[in-house]
């Protein structure tokens, strides 16, 4: 203060002051909201649930973290996320990026794939919860499943029917076999009940008990029920035949000899049956249940469902970053590989992918970090009843610290654990920067 500082000193002080002016606001925010809390949380993780003084518990909170089943489930689930999502997202992004280079409407395609990136993970959760509804009439995913399964294993004509008399017995395969044996010239009655009026096959008319024919086995399959009940095992007026039912004639050994479909009035006719004893039966396919939908949001599928929705969000990110890497790739190298006679696949495997390796690793590492911190989508997509099954570290931390028990000690330990998991990436970033300088 007494003597004015020398030129060099004032320059140094001035530089400090100018630097401080520009940096102070940001450093204040980082100090108060990030550095101080980080230290606090680390210290807090060694104390009990209620406070600091006299509540030192050492590593007990960390022990709890690895021994409580809801928390170990969270860690296991996060491990699944890390194992599946970064690899899938990178692979899908790579495929999309390479393929879009060959179409003329690449901009439109990329926008469609990239769109979910703008939407919150929370809104995505809500969106997919609508998609995943179990009833194939409501949830689009199961509706698609029903359409596909309808092609390969169509639902039976009568999925809910059961026999009206005990003479008709269910076999292990789901078929119904009439216990009473029949010989050529015989008449069989296959009565079924438990069929709702709107489940009766279209075109059904009054059931008719056919007259016996020599050399044939005839019979009727009908809805053995009329308003008021009716008499079991008797074809009565007001009872409908069941058309389109697969009826089988089985030998005494149980082998299917003939098979036919019933007519509108429920009658069927096995012709030219050689002598012997047989059993009439209704084929199992008649009773095949329609596709009821997978419980995507149920305890068994909730984790894969979450992974699918998450990959849906991030594929666009990977595609764009990898696409930029592709665009920056030396074209002549690819051309040279092609002129040398490499097939597209060889060029992709031996040239494109190795050249893209740095970009791929950036995407991969970014996704690992994202996945470790995943929270919103689990919160929104998993029904509350499945939180225990769908649990991830970030969700467990929130619920442990701020809901229910409100345990800040274990909550802090979970946060520190999460932090430790990202430390390698932190070190990687710093090393990369030091190399640049």
């Amino acid at each position, binding site marked *: 203060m007494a003597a004015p500082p020398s030129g060099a000193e004032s320059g140094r002080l001035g*530089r400090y002051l100018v630097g401080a002016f520009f940096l102070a606001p940001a450093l204040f*925010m980082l100090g108060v909201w*990030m550095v101080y809390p980080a230290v606090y949380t680390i210290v807090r993780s060694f104390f009990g649930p209620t406070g600091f003084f006299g509540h030192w518990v050492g590593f007990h909170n960390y022990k709890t973290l690895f021994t409580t089943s809801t928390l170990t489930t969270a860690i296991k689930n996060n491990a699944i996320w890390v194992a599946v999502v970064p690899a899938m997202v990178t692979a899908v992004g790579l495929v999309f990026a390479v393929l879009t280079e060959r179409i003329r409407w690449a901009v439109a395609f990329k926008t469609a794939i990239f769109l979910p990136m703008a939407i919150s993970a*929370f809104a995505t959760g809500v969106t997919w919860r609508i998609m995943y509804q179990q009833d194939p009439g409501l949830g*689009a995913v199961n509706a698609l499943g029903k359409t596909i399964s309808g092609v390969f294993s169509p639902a039976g004509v009568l999925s809910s029917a059961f026999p009206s008399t005990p003479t008709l017995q269910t076999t292990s395969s789901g078929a119904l076999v009439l216990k009473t044996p029949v010989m050529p010239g015989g008449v069989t009655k296959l009565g079924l009940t438990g069929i709702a009026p709107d489940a009766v096959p279209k075109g059904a008319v009054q059931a008719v008990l056919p007259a016996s024919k020599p050399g044939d086995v005839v019979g009727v399959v009908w809805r053995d029920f009329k308003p008021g009940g009716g008499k079991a095992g008797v074809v009565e007026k007001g009872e409908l035949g069941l058309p389109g039912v697969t009826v089988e004639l089985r030998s005494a050994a149980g082998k299917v000899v003939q098979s036919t479909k019933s007519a509108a009035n429920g009658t069927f006719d096995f012709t030219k049956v050689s002598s012997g004893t047989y059993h009439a039966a209704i084929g199992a396919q008649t009773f095949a249940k329609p596709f009821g939908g997978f419980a995507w949001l149920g305890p068994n599928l909730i984790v894969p469902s979450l992974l699918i929705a998450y990959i849906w969000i991030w594929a666009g990110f990977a595609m764009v970053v990898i696409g930029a890497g592709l*665009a920056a790739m030396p074209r002549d190298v690819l051309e040279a590989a092609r002129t040398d006679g490499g097939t597209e696949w060889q060029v992709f495997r031996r040239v494109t992918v190795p050249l893209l390796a740095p970009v791929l690793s950036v995407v991969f590492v970014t996704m690992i970090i994202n996945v470790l911190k995943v929270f919103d989508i689990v919160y*929104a997509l998993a029904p509350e009843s499945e939180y225990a099954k769908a649990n991830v570290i*970030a969700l467990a*931390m929130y619920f442990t610290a701020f809901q229910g028990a409100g345990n*800040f000690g274990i909550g802090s330990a979970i946060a520190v654990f999460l932090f430790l998991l990202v430390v390698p990436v932190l070190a990687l970033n710093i090393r990369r920067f030091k190399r640049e300088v």
Partner: protein
Amino acid sequence: MASAVAVELPAPRDAVAARIVRAIARGPLNIVLAVLGVLWLVPTIGLFITSILPASADASKGWWQIFTKPSLATWGNYHALFHQSGLVQALKTTVYIAVGNTFLVVILGALAGYAFAWLDFPGRDWLFIGVIGLLVVPLQMALIPMFKLYDTFGLFDTWEGIALFHVAFGLPFAIFLLRNFFAGLPKDIMESARIDGANEIVIFLRLILPLGLPAIASLAIFQFLWTWNDLLVALTFGQNTTPITVWIAGQLREFGTSIDIIAPASFISLIVPLCVFLAFQRYFVQGLLAGSVK
């Protein structure tokens, strides 16, 4: 999009036959990609259609019923929503948080970014390494202490408290992005300005901010989307003052019966970031490419 806008040169006029052969060869690829593109859009479209169907229709059949019965569509759900004061208030809170914190992040980030890029002071690189270290720190590390601190200082359950939290956690990325961009600006402009007697503040306002606009735009869009879409921070620090995500989360418990509220509210919450994204796609992608280390 930086990469999407690949320059398409006019194709050389080669033989018609060759062109047809190529088109046929690419037919399957076009079809596969078209199917994938549509598949990627279906969930969002499904959400929108669900939001314009009356609750009774939503409960009985899937949203695709609209293709056979277009007359079902109605704005009734939206009308009802906007007359529920809760949603409008939540939307306002979201706007305050998203706009307010983006504004602050851009200013503080630009000031610090300039200092790290162009000012020479002792300890600069070490401080910057510290900032890089903070890039990946999970915000879970700050939830508990800030919860207590906010309680003490009356910031709990205020939009300012939520916004300030976002500012802090947005800053490492902001500083990182802007510092790198500013450092790439031509040095001689800055030096000639200094020789002309301009001080650092003038240089910052007159040169750095205008020249850095592309990076600032990227940052602003990123920060806006990130905070508009946030759930966890608002869930922790808000109680009655909550943004739209938390407001919807409060309805999730009755997912089946409140679908006529949840679907339109979710669509409202996503339409704003979607428009921002579509309008500024280029900047968004640039930011993504510059900083995909976060």
